[in-house]
């Protein structure tokens, strides 16, 4: 049970949050301009690093706001949270 430091609410149990996958994968400015392969990569392909990983979390049972966290996938330590 991670203790996640919500940037708005402070430290809360992991089960108050839900996970939103890799952070900083922006919706393309013009999807129509993308090739099928580029669009497919946006839809389906995400990084899977061993080590620090920037990911999105939502404090769904609290303030209901999204934020980013850097988590080390080897140790499960949350290294940093930011809005």
């Amino acid at each position, binding site marked *: *049970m*991670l*203790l996640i430091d919500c940037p708005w609410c402070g430290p809360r*149990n*992991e089960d108050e949050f839900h996970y*939103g996958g890799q952070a900083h994968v*922006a*919706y393309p400015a*013009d*999807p*129509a301009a*993308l090739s*099928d392969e580029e*669009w*497919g990569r946006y*839809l389906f392909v995400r990084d899977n690093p061993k080590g620090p990983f920037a990911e*999105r979390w*939502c404090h*769904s049972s609290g303030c*209901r*706001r*999204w934020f980013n966290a850097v988590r080390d996938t080897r*140790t*499960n*330590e949350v290294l940093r949270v930011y809005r």
Partner: protein
Amino acid sequence: MNLRLPTTADVLRFTFDGVEYTGHAGDTLAAALLANGVRQVGTSVRLGRPRGIMSAGSEEPTGVVQIETPFADPLRPATMVELFDGLAATGLAGRGRLADVPDPARYDAVFAHCDVLVVGAGPAGTAAAAFAARAGVRVMLCDEHPRDPALVSGATVLGRTTVFGYYDDNYLVAVERRTDHLGFAAPADMARERIWRIRAKRVILATGAHERLIAFPGNDRPGVMLAGAARTYLHRFGVVAGRRAVVFTANRSGHQAAEDLAAAGVEIAAVADAREGRTVTGTEGAPALTAVLVDGRRVEADLLVVSGGWSPVLHLYSQAGGRLRYDEDLGAFLPDGCRQAVEPVGAAAGRYDHDACAADGVAVAARALTALGVPTGPVPPVPAGRLDPPGSYLWRAAIDAAPHEAFVDLQRDVTVADIRRATGAGLRSVEHVKRYTTAGTAHDQGKTSGLLASATVGDALGARIAELGVTTFRPPYTPVSFAALAGRDRGDRFDPVRITAIHDWHVARGAPFENVGQWKRPWYYPQPGEDLDAAVHRECVAARTGVAMMDASTLGKIDVRGPDAAEFLDRMYTNVMSSLGVGAVRYGVMCRLDGMVFDDGTVARLAEDRFLVTTTTGNAAAVLDWFEEWLQTEWPDLEVWCTSVTEQWSTVAVVGPQSRAVLGTICGSLADLPFMRWRDATVAGLAARVFRISFSGELAFEVNVPWWQGPALWEAVHAAGQPWGITPYGTQTMHVLRAEKGYPIIGQDTDGTVTPHDLGLAWAVSKKKTDFIGKRSFTRPDTARPDRKHLVGLLPEDPALRLPEGAHLVASQELPPPPVPLLGHVTSSYHSAALGRTFALALVRSGRNRLGDRLWVPLGDGPVVPVTVTAPVLYDPEGTRRDG
């Protein structure tokens, strides 16, 4: 010689295997059995060999019993069962029996926070807890054995509490056993067990060490006991485990046992210290020990005290992510650093001397306090606490004489021969050997045998233990019942139940309920003598020919407001919402980014900057989350606010050709309300918002009033409809009516692989908008291919045959050899009153190109039946009934 030393403790009666015995207050069942000379407790799981009591704690591998009264409890180590008056237990043949009646006990949960959590109240743990508590920080001390709550002043002391799981960020879970030791005197209102979920800033693991058995032929016979356990029975319970003992050891522990037992009057027949070249090569006796072969000489004995060495208990440490390092001198794994704020202490850190453990407790507590920013004075140095010279441990003796009788894991009946068979089969990892032999997988999880198993694998492979390691430690440390983990969250409290304001009316009319998400929705309203089919037939006829009413309050409702609300909805829905005039309503479809349908519903424009969105009942929260995710993460520039108003509005659907007439008697201003419009009105004296929308194809109205006025509205509509025989209907009739019109239910007729085009909803997909969620995916090759599965209707050739939902469609009556090419499956299937026959909806490959075709449906083990593919709209395809 009596096996029990003199005592004044209260006498308790108990039965074991149906025989009456007495014990004393403070006994465990194991202690009382030993005191009564009961040496065989059960038989082993695979080989049926007699087994007795080997340890004095939760690591017990053999003395496993079934508790019969007051409540059946399977597979409990007799060493952990506290004796009470009237206890009845039976020995087991390796497996317990679950109770066949419901458990009447209550279970509960506690959440706790502390600065320092100490696990284990031995010398090291008690010293650590006392030192930390004196510094004024919040200290919890848990121990699996009974402990005096006042053991450490200023600390929360929890006895009979096993910390069984260690998770991220110093989150530990413990189970406290509160009533089992009280037996029949347990208060009925006291929770039997409590789960403690503890967040600790620092953790000190004073979990001690487990003594190990030695692998030698006949090491499983009742009467073989670990040295430390023999001392525990003597000193804690006043019980000697035998009259004439042989000691087989490679360390000080065996000698201590010999000295203590001798002082208590036990005859010590031999002490075989492997370090002096002496050995035990076998045992005799059935069912229990009568003799030991020492250096090839037969020595009569009823007790064989064994110590192969000690293993620090690092299960929790390992669960926490702690690394382990094998120490050749000690013959054990020791802690080697952990990212979490935890430190093992005392025997758990390889110190086996009492004073060294206590000193270590103080030193580790001081380090924890320092980390917490609490000043401490100077701390005395900690001695190494090793009682023996390096190498004072032993894994095996004389195993080659009878490897199939030299046991490694006694609970699973795994012998040296079994492990050699595993390595002989090519297995090289201790994890693989574990799975092949099942060593370490029993209820004791190999506490006394895990390292012995690694050593035995090492013997077979010529590998060092340091290279092999041990198998992974996983929670729980000891078995935990599901009842305890569930706590109060069982039965009615398993999941929140949501009911509408009108629920009591449905209950009073005897409606069975259908679960839709957490909602309870009336399924149908049976009249006397009616079954589901008869009631639904009657309800459908009423809606199609007269008037009917339904509680539609569970429909998800989201208020979307702000200057950019129209733009936002244009991006979320496949169709255009910004062109909607105030007062108008539009059906809309929402997709995920991959172009698959996610939800559908209506959008009503309440004002220029305000919309009311409805969602499917089960998807309301997911749609609101989806909206919020896009607004917060991608489009924070849009000024839009979303609010769930599902439980702000009670909704009554009035459906059928007479619905306008019924509402006309309680509302004067609806006669000219056009289809797909809404209007504020006064209905039966209630301020209402009325929508003219239809999920049945009939003339229909949905009347919304504030939630708490739902019952008043419902009663008023019901009363007003009496002259027309207004008929309440439930979800089953709703499903039939919508299916007759080919309206899909998202989640029933779709499964996350279905596009709007597959559903025949291309008309609801805008071609004008430059973008919306899912648009780009519609031109991906897979979503654009012509042979996707389409939603179609099916008419079984036998008009009385109702196809099972989920049934597959195939091309021919004769099934080809497998794999049979499947063309699709039935998603909805009903009997239709309006059509006078059965029908179904199905997703069928290239379905819209097969209209009129004959396909086949295999009915499990039954016949393969023919069906005709049709358009999905089977009733009133021209839409003539919409306006009544």
